[in-house]
């Protein structure tokens, strides 16, 4: 079977036929690079995606025409900068189907989740209370909760996955009880591509009055996200995982929390009155945005949202899925290769090659210009569960092609030969 011959559309998605990965690809300056003398095959998109020209240009334009102090200046330039900043908030809100007043700018998912673990943890957790996370969590949605539990005398409970890499929802249900204050889950596993049924988890948590915090790092690049439909209390994303710049992200806070949650940081821009005796914070998302905002990051994030809206996303999904299927099928033909994770999921494929360490495999691929991730992928608890020290991961974006999948599979075969 030759995966390159597979059409780049899934059956039954008619609009998908129009999707042209090359047209997307052409918008990314970085994708023309060569590595070790070979054309770059970038399959490390779950770590960070590339930035399209529209994102780059938006930031350059901001720096050249609207750069000034946000929210504080009386002058015209300050107003221009503020407008740019706030319209990026509106763009982010539309991406998640939220209102802008519930969108807090952060440095990224790790920053957003730490904010929630700090402020919500301190507010909700007492001695003997419980926080439920899952075996799928990235360290960024695991350690902040572990440490919050340690600080507050609460108990961290880790919901297991099934052998096929799905969240074991029954086990989670059994774990949630009257002491559960917070359930923190990833939306999409960065290792296995598993899509977690967040709405179901929200109804389970609602049953005991627990808050639900979602790590959305891997979601908006691949799936439509609707925080109102999910019904969660918090949802964190990073721009750099969806074609925007690093250092920028947003944290959705539900109406229940945004105006009353204690800020995790204090400083300029979130103050109503400040004195040693009495200090009060404003309401609204700026409450949680102490300090000069990363306006350029927000502008780039807004441009990334616009970029995501510039092509047929259902068609892109079908294309990504066909690439994923080609990788899984191709690896299935390679002796000693093993794919981890569920049959269905986001286009993130982790695999191993018996007798070859993940890092050696990745280095063989690197020498061919193929960039993949190898290691524990910031998910040590999951690695332990899978019984491996490390895996190799290929993660897909709409600009990837079937020819690139072939390059990946060739490299894996090559590694098999070298280490035979």
């Amino acid at each position, binding site marked *: 079977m030759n995966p390159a011959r597979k059409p780049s559309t899934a059956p039954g998605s008619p609009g998908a036929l129009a999707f042209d990965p090359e047209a997307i690809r052409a918008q990314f300056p970085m994708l023309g690079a060569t590595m070790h003398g070979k054309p770059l095959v970038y399959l490390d998109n779950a770590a960070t995606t590339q930035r399209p020209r529209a994102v780059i240009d938006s930031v350059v334009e901001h720096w050249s025409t609207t750069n000034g102090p946000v929210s504080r200046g009386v002058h015209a330039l300050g107003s221009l900068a503020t*407008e740019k900043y706030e319209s990026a908030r509106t763009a982010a809100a539309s991406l998640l189907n939220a209102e802008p*007043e519930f969108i807090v700018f952060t440095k990224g998912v790790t920053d957003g989740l730490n904010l929630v673990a700090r402020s919500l943890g301190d507010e909700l957790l007492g001695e003997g209370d419980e926080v439920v996370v899952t075996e799928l969590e990235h360290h960024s949605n695991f350690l902040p909760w572990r440490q919050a539990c340690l600080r507050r005398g609460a108990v961290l409970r880790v919901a297991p996955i099934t052998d096929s890499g799905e969240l074991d929802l029954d086990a989670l249900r059994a774990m949630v009880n009257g002491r559960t204050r917070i359930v923190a889950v990833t939306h999409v596993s960065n290792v296995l591509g598993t899509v977690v049924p967040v709405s179901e988890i929200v109804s389970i948590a609602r049953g005991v009055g627990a808050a639900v915090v979602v790590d959305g790092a891997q979601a908006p690049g691949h799936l439509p996200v609707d925080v109102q439909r999910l019904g969660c209390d918090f949802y964190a994303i990073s721009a750099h995982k969806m074609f925007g710049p690093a250092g920028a992200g947003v944290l959705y806070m539900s109406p229940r929390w945004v105006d009353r949650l*204690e*800020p995790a940081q*204090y400083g300029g821009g979130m103050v*109503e*009155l400040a004195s040693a005796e009495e200090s*009060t914070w*404003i*309401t609204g998302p700026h409450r949680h945005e102490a300090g000069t905002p990363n306006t350029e990051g927000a502008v780039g994030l807004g441009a990334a949202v616009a970029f995501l809206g510039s092509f047929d996303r259902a068609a892109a999904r079908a294309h990504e899925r066909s690439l994923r299927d080609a990788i899984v099928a191709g690896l299935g033909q390679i002796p000693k290769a093993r794919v981890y994770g569920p049959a269905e999921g986001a286009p993130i494929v982790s695999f191993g090659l018996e007798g070859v360490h993940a890092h050696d495999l990745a280095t063989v691929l690197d020498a061919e210009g193929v960039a993949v991730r190898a290691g524990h992928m910031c998910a040590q608890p999951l690695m332990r569960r899978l019984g491996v020290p490390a895996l190799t991961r290929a993660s897909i974006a709409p600009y990837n092609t079937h020819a690139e999948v072939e390059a990946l599979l060739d490299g894996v075969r090559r590694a098999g030969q070298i280490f035979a």
Partner: protein
Amino acid sequence: MLESLYQQILLDHSRHPCHHGRPERFDAEAEGHNPICGDKVRVFVTLKDDGIEEVRFEGAGCAISQASASMMTNALSGLSIDDAKAVRAAFLDLVAAAEPDKSSGERVNEELRSMSEVRRFPARVKCATLAWHALARALGEALKGSGGPPSGSVGGGKTG
């Protein structure tokens, strides 16, 4: 442009505000505070059977916030609640909307119309609307919840 923002009438109002000072009795009050510039205004409303008897204010701040508060007390004292709401809506549209309705200018008096230039200075719009937002909160209270406070960065902080 500057002349049309800081017209004589605005300067006069800011120096000699009308209906200024806390009344002896009032039916409702609310405070507006702009944490960015520190402007503060407190609005007092005295009601009568068929509407507003008088609006008064006290506070300190820039010429724009003081003049706007003063002009507001002139424009609304004596109006029915509905008429006051209509004037307020027209004024907010005039100074703050991205594309104001053509009729808004006609639905406010000449004094208020003189403030329309503030729209060219987006950072000052909050000054011009401070007293008007406080009024909405005061009236919301007076009318037991009709309307309700606008959210956002004005007021409502939590003591830390």
